[in-house]
């Protein structure tokens, strides 16, 4: 397993030999993970390997188990079966941070205090720096209630980054934002990831967003990986390019094909029942 990972990492470094940081990222190995809620299977014998510093996007319809996967990596869900290991050592848990669809800022703490949550006052200068990186230095002493949705997500991003995570999990963090703010946020996330070199794991239902950001797009359907595409487009990626559009189309077709099959199956079942 680890040799495959190492190989992949070298490969990626060769492909993207462009001064990108790799130092902080941690590899993620998800082996044979199964999760069920009240007997309903969400993930079944799920396997994914992510190289250190890789940006992986998971797409899929709602309820396909993609959020559950992220939540189990950060420890909010416990798989009934299988293992999730981060890095080579299973004992030292590298720093993992998750960003949710809603910002989950504490409304009773000012922006700066939200960013330093769980850290001492010694982290204030560092937090101010990260806030400046997300473009909100001047809002440090405001209440979250006075911020717009996009600004709140930027604060949530800053809060995660202050911890200098080795793995950043993004659970549809841009899902609730308007189209323009989304593009801005995508650029910001790509930038920060590029310069800091953490491993990023993005869950989204937006195929274009996945292709814009990720090195690799994984499609999940009914708890299994059905597509695993390496995106070798140069960054920053132009949404208008032919190759971008072709890839987006291929993935979308795959998503819709599954649905078409399901409808066909249902239709066939219905017609056989009629014939009886």
């Amino acid at each position: 397993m680890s040799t495959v990972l190492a190989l992949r990492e070298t490969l990626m470094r060769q492909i993207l030999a462009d001064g990108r940081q790799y130092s902080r990222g941690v590899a993620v190995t998800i082996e044979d993970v199964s999760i069920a809620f009240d007997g309903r299977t969400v993930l079944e014998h799920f396997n994914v390997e992510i190289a250190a510093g890789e940006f992986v996007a998971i797409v899929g319809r709602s309820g396909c188990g993609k959020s559950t996967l992220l939540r189990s990596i950060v420890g909010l869900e416990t798989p009934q079966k299988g293992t999730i290991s981060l890095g080579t050592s299973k004992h030292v848990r590298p720093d993992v941070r998750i960003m949710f669809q809603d910002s989950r800022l504490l409304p009773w703490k000012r922006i700066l205090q939200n960013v330093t949550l769980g850290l001492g006052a010694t982290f204030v200068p560092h937090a101010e720096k990260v806030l400046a990186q997300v473009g909100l230095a001047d809002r440090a002493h405001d209440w979250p209630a006075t911020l717009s949705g996009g600004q709140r997500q930027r604060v949530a991003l800053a809060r995660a980054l202050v911890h200098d995570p080795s793995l950043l999990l993004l659970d549809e963090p841009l899902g609730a934002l308007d189209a323009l703010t989304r593009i801005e946020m995508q650029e910001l996330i790509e930038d920060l990831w590029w310069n800091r070199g953490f491993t990023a794991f993005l869950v989204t239902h937006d195929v274009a967003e996945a292709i814009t950001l990720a090195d690799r797009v994984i499609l999940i359907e009914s708890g299994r990986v059905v597509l695993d595409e390496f995106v070798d487009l140069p960054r920053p990626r132009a949404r208008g390019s032919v190759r971008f559009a072709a890839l987006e189309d291929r993935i979308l077709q795959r998503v819709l094909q599954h649905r078409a099959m399901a409808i066909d199956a249902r239709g066939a079942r219905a017609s056989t029942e009629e014939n009886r």
Partner: protein
Amino acid sequence: MKGRVMADFHRAAVWSRNNLRKIGERALPWLAPVALLVVWQLASSSGRLPSRFLPSPRAIVKSFIELSVSGELWTHVRVSTMRALSGLAVGGGLGLILGLLTGSFRWAEMLLDTTLQMIRNIPALALIPLVILWFGIDESAKVFLVALGVFFPIYINTFHGIQSVDHGLLEMGRTYGLSGWALYREVILPGALPSILVGVRFSLGFMWVMLIVAETISARSGIGYMTMNARDFMQTDVMVVGILLYALLGKAADLLSKGLERHWLRWHWAYQQVR
């Protein structure tokens, strides 16, 4: 030239109209009470409303001034306020502690909540005969009644507040390594605070109700005593002063709790200026 004069004139007219409207808006809520006072005073001075029944506003003001100059009024107010505050401290403190306990720990909820809900359904005033039997008619009986009155609003709202803390925020706190007391201090307590403060405001209302009842039954000092004593001597003006004092103290308590809310919940969207 003529146009300019007309424009000035028009502006002045608009200005005075706007100001008049502002004054009108301020004055309107006071119109009914002032009219009532005037009618009341007229009815009293014309002799249609006997002072035995209800004294005139002027007599009430006079008696208020007399009582405050002699210092009698302030003694009673001080005694009543002390009773109210000690009852609030005892009952509110217990309610807060038990509410935090049952809200935070499943075992505490299982152990205590059913019992407390049963006791809650007994009207506190129904306990008066027992309270007199237990504590006699001295201070502790009054403090006990007030404490009983304020306990449940604070208990229930604290319990509810803790239980309804945003689950997403709890989850977020945990992924940031908060647990135990740190999670409690940073997420759970502030999240429950709006609800706890609603409990405090409710309990302040009950606080005065219980105090009035306690002081009316048996007391040798306090506003209730002053009022009951005045009844024995048919001093209707003193009685009305006592009633108005309760109203003023109640209003003061409400203002105080509103102030606390404004300070402690200044982060809340309800207190934010929209930018």
